[in-house]
């Protein structure tokens, strides 16, 4: 057998809400961005690996971070008060740019945040959707795409292409937006929620860059499903409680994040090129980090005694996964180089 996966927990003196790998340009160690809070303050920390005990740099935030994403050059964090903070991934806190919360932007938590080339999309619980882009002179401009006036709230957002993005939220399932068609919702999916629950909440959406017509969605009650724009009426269940036998349930609680996992080889390579879903990694409130695949038993990577609030797969080194644990620690999982492929 190949190397077994190794997992290491690093206790930190604050609570970690979100964690992401930062693109490391140099060979000198690897870097993490973590949105943390303690009793008195919320901050964005730059943490070094393998020993993340003391932050290399920090940026204070006005309230707890609700979303954190990084593009190759920029790190962006949105907060529970509704502000957006952009800073270069070199973590030069002096050149950070903020879009303050308020009537002109968001009021309340902004959980949907994603980078699509030059533009950032933000979707908040207040029902507003913005596209934020550079104004050319070092400032940023937030353009309002939609104001739901609180009639619906968004919890997740993801770009599919430079003109299309998907959002999801409380009870409203998933929407597909097309900027070329007047910034409008062009498709809508109710989602799949089992156990007699009429609706559930979407927490996370991921879209694979090579298959831009498919979103994978994670939400309440252990639900994970894929939605293919070509077959809009039939979302494909990947996991969920009380679904009719078509998918196994990997957990029963909230699925906080989902990401396509490039590292795990699909067990059937030929069919994966056509109709099958690619493997998806998820983390949950009941402490599960697992890989789910269509028509396969879920592969559990971690079963922690506390919630896993966030995780990220290193884009440069996809065998490595970092996760934020509820009990004030981060965990780094290194998967054996060939463990998955040999199975």
């Amino acid at each position, binding site marked *: 057998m190949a190397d077994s996966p190794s997992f290491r927990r690093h*206790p*930190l*003196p*604050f*609570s970690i809400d979100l964690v992401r790998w930062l693109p490391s340009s140099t060979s000198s160690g690897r870097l993490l961005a973590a949105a943390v809070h*303690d*009793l008195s303050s919320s901050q964005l920390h730059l943490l070094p690996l393998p020993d993340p005990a003391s932050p290399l740099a920090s940026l204070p935030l006005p309230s*707890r971070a609700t979303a954190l994403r990084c593009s190759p050059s920029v790190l962006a964090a949105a907060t*529970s008060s509704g502000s957006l903070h952009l800073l270069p991934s070199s973590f030069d806190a002096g050149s950070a740019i903020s879009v303050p919360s308020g009537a002109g932007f968001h009021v*309340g*938590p902004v959980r949907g945040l994603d980078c699509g080339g030059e533009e950032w999309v933000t979707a908040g*619980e*207040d*029902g507003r959707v913005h596209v934020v882009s550079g104004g050319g002179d070092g400032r940023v401009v937030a353009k309002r795409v939609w104001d*739901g*006036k*609180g*009639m*619906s*709230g968004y*919890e997740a957002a993801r770009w599919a292409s430079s003109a299309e993005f998907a959002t999801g*939220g*409380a*009870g*409203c*399932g998933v929407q597909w937006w097309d900027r070329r068609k007047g910034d409008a*919702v062009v498709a*809508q999916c*109710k989602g799949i929620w089992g156990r007699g*629950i*009429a*609706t559930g*909440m979407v927490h996370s959406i991921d879209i694979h860059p090579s298959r831009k017509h498919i979103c994978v969605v994670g939400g*309440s009650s252990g639900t994970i499903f894929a939605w293919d724009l070509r077959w809009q009426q039939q979302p494909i269940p990947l996991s969920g409680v009380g679904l009719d036998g078509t998918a196994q349930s990997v957990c*029963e*609680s*909230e699925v906080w994040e989902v990401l396509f996992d490039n590292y795990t080889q699909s067990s059937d390579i030929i069919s994966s090129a056509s109709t099958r879903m690619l493997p998806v990694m998820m983390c949950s*409130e*009941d402490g599960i980090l697992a890989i789910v695949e269509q028509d396969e038993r879920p592969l559990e990577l971690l079963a922690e*005694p*506390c*919630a896993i609030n966030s995780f990220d797969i290193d884009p440069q080194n996809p065998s490595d996964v970092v996760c934020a644990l*509820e*009990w*004030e*620690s981060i965990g780094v999982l290194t998967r054996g180089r060939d463990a998955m492929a040999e199975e």
Partner: protein
Amino acid sequence: MMPGMPAANGGAIVPFSGEPHHAASVPHVRPIRHGVAPPIFRVYVSWSSGNLLQVACLRQPSPEDGGGSGSEEVAGRVVEVNLGVGNGSAEVEKEVDEAEMRRIEYGSVPAFALLQSRKNALAGTAAMSHMQAVPEHAEWWQYVLEYSKTIGYLLGNPDSLPAPMIEDARAILKVKEKPTSLKAAWELLEIFYVDKQLHSWLPERLVDWLADYDSLLTKTDGTVYCKLSNFQKKLINLQIVENDPDYWNGLSAALSVGWLDVVVNMLRFHGSYQLDQMDNRETENGLVEAVAVLVSTMPRMRPDLPTGKLGQCCKTRPDFIKAWEKWRGQVSKLECSAFWIQCGHQKTRDGLKNLLHIMMGNIKDVTAATSHWLELFTSHVLYIRPFTVGFEGMHHLAQKCIQLKPSFDNNGLTGLLTGILSENPEVVLAECTKKFGPWMVTHAMELLAADNDYADIMLHEERPNFGGMSIEELHRLVYAQVLCSHSLTWQIAPTYLSSCLNQGLGLLEILLLKQPIQDNRLVLKTLELCRLYELENVSTNIMKIAGIFHWKHGRKGTGVYWFQQAHDKVRLDRIAQQLFERIGESVAADNFKQWEGLLELLGSDIGSAGGLEFLHRYRDFKRSLQQALEGRTAEAARQTVEFLIQLMRNPSTPQRFWLPLLHDSVMLLNCKPRPLLNVAETTLLLNKLQEVSMAKLRPDYCSNQLTSHALNSVRLALASNLACAILEEP
């Protein structure tokens, strides 16, 4: 709480003290920045979760700022005040910093939960087998030992520091992670209460323990550790060590508490080992080496020796007794040897002889060599009563040692040990509470009761003066309260509360209901706990509270979502009424786009939407009508009319929408060559129209903007439709 009266000076709030002359009750003044301009009309104070106090400051509502548009001033504000940061915790918890303590708290949850579930499983099997002898019971202490080891590991791992690259030959004491009293106390309890295998070699365990934690015994009085570390500092500047009295003092001190490796290492510093002196000091060197050999072969009654420790390991008692007699014989023989006369160095002769006397168990020398009573106690156990088994006479011995070397610096460890040796679990528990805090007490109770029936009864007996609670439950509740008071640790409190049969569940419900509901993710975390502990009504209540919060703050969709999750028909109906009023104001098609998200939320499962069901049908009707008017296809028109009839038949359609609905359809009714409605349908609509016009006369009628002209045009359209329909029908 009673609303208090604010003081006049700029709006500061001064607490009222009942006894102003009493020194202990001097009010603690805390300024609050509430930002509300004076005069403040009313102040409300209430407890939030943990140490948070919520203070609401309100101004007198005045009629002129009723509109709220022009006035910049805040009418009132709620501020949260965090009281008592950092106080109230035990002394030892300060030694461990707060984040580190939280790490210990988190880490002990799985171990505690596992032990509780094993306990319940055993109780279950015991009940099943009708209280017959349960074989598993014998293994209980092993479960507790596993638990104790897990927790002990959390408290610190002495070997976690990497070994130095170059070992310093002149280092007397190894560099280790700084020991904590918490870990020391935990190990003491484990040694004496849990590990049954250890009882035959308890004295040796105590020696090991002292080797790790001697530095913690006292801050003011001296210890062996102190002596050695002072000598270590001095060592760098010493040319001839054997001329320094501290060298010999250090040696006898280390030997008296059984640190054989330290003694042998230090003996090798002796000047006679130096190559240039070998020739002159041959006999002297021989004596030093002989003592070193005797020290390193001292028999020890223990299963194994860790690497680096010296001595001759004896696994059984007869072996040990035999080896001990033999070794003592060798010590005595050396003591009487003729070579001492040939040893020219006076200090070496005296120092080495002193070491031999300690090994022979000479009370006077042993007493002189040690500093703290516990060290004296240990050397008694090692050299004077080497065959002691278990607790036999230990308490008496401890009393004697305390008399000889009284200590005035009670740091908890010695108090704890006195309690243990006097076999008094109450004292042990009290020391834990006083010195080591609620975490320690809660987790240590499991050790106390592991194999001690008296402690078991003492901890678990229901006490009427505690409202039927046991001491165990009381301490767990106290610890749970400590956890609840911190926003990062409240989530682990339920594990402890749920193990409290008497009051735990009630407090758990209160804890969950008190959690903030502003953030959806936090609400979901709270709901997950409700799911785990099967508290469905609590979770319904939380959803309703969250629903109202979001609704009030304009996040209507989220509000409706939570009400739906809570199956709260009553509030959904209420909300429906409020929403309908808005629709009545704006029915233009463009505005309707705003409602799309909410309608999607309501979903196809109309049953769960309560009164909001109407919205869905209304949207369908509007959409269809638009298509019918644009496309003018017969199919679309027919569809629209069907929606209209459904709406008019449905009892949940509010009356005030009847006329607007009919009026919207007039165009459709008029433009068709053939009637869209049959006689029965037309009659239904006419009846509804009649009802509306009758209602107009009632005093509680709420007027629409539609005029009597609209009424007439609807009536005319329906009448002409009826006429056509009658003609059409066979």
